[in-house]
């Protein structure tokens, strides 16, 4: 008898859930809100007001990438804004971990992650991001709020306390 009562309790919880509102987001019709700090698989190379790349081809991102998928070739000479610039900049997305280390080390906020959660490629060529593609994507899609300087400012310990501590 007590077992039947227990089963009724189970059914009570089930009924309670039966009348809860639907949790599903009807995907293609309605899209999920993407958070500000989104860390996606797609990269963009932003340009400054003159239309020149922010990237100065310092190769810091190439160095820190755990999967070694970033390849930067600096160009000879300088661009209109008087900075060094990359001639080639490729990212092979097959092995990208989306760890954001490249964004974190960039001194000029020149590489950002884009708010594109459902990005997919149909061929391997598309997975190889070239300089032109990344500039285009950077213009086309909204970028994540996290960029090198913002992240580093967040992390930097205040100098005064450090002096007080030592």
């Amino acid at each position, binding site marked *: 008898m007590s077992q039947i009562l227990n089963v009724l309790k189970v059914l009570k919880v089930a009924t309670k*859930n039966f009348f809860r509102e639907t949790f599903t987001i009807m995907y293609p019709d309605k899209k999920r809100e993407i958070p500000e700090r989104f860390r996606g698989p797609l990269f963009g190379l932003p340009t400054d007001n003159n239309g020149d790349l922010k990237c100065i081809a310092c190769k810091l991102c190439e160095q820190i990438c755990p999967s070694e998928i970033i390849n930067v070739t600096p160009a000879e000479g300088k661009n209109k804004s008087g900075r060094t610039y990359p001639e080639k900049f490729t990212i092979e997305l097959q092995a990208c971990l989306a760890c954001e280390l490249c964004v974190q080390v960039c001194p000029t906020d020149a590489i950002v992650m884009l708010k594109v959660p459902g990005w997919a490629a149909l061929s391997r060529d598309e997975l190889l991001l070239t300089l032109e593609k990344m500039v285009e994507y950077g213009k086309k899609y909204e970028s994540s709020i996290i960029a090198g300087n913002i992240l580093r400012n967040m992390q930097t310990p205040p100098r005064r306390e450090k002096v007080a501590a030592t």
Partner: protein
Amino acid sequence: MERELKIYEPEEEIILNMGPQHPSTHGVLRIILKLSGEKIVDVKPDIGYLHRGVEKLGETYTYVQFLPMLDRNDYLSATTNEFGYVLAVEKLAGIMVPERAQYIRVIFSELSRIASHLVWLGTFCLDLGGALGGGTTVFLYCFRERERILDIFEKMTGSRLHPHLMQIGGVRYDVYPSIDKDIKETLQTVEKRINEYEEMLINNPVFIDRTKGIGILPKEVAMEYGCSGPVLRGSGVKFDLRKACPYSSYDKFDFDVPSFDGGDVFDRFRVRMEEMRQSIKIIMQAIEGLPQGPISSQMPVKVKVAIKPKPGEVYVAVESPRGELGYYIYSDGKPFAYRVKIRAPSFSNLSVLPFLLKGHLVADVVAILGSIDPVFGDVDR
């Protein structure tokens, strides 16, 4: 003359190869079962299908680069993996961590513990089969709640499963402004729902029938095999690294370590349910008392060789949702470790499987395996 009693001994046994492609081996475990009818005579687990050489990678990657890799180890509770590693490196290099960073670490590793246990509850019930109180119903309910926790992860770090939240000397991200409201709301719902699921399951006679008295693991055997975490606590040993040797700032929070004496599947279930409540308690305290201050004691990472600990060796263990997750690091003064050894809780817990399975039926395999809760990224590394 005494009549000889002839006991029927089945001569033919079949060998059933369960896995590595099997819906309820939680990944890629292969269990070779020797069956007589439906009864298990002999068990041979076979692992290694998800081996990715993470320990070896730790010798070639620098300390900074290795962190995002560790997220992929125990992918259900990524932050606890990072937690153990950063603690080990900090101990090795003698780096202090600001209190705010410690609190953020605790909050997020406890959140990932809840998320991990929710996945466990869902998949465990899915393994038991059926519908309510098992089966797809509880599975989907649990994932519904886990989704909300992952949303917090996403808002905080931008990534749902592989947060890469920690760095040596602190955390990489400061909390976002409305985090306390988000966490409190989410956890209140989660606590209510957990109570609901528990009511649903422990009142379900069939669930009790499937779990009580199945796969009994005596205290001594559990200790001999080096089990830890909920598996050990389900056998009546009250041992939790967060209490036994408090790391980070766990000594500042008030929480209990649940343990039950039965040692069966049902008790492991109860331990995990209770642990989720305790985690909620810890997070609530941490979010209330979140101190102000810097989130990192080190200057932000700019190059991969940023951390260079002195030569030496260190072993640091943290309590992951599965048990004692230990990192042994041997450093020879270079920016990368000479040797990294990961003591994976799932591996030690899984080693007790042949002991548990013998004499049970095929249907119990999934229940017992589910109650151990191995994650194969963790077992094979």
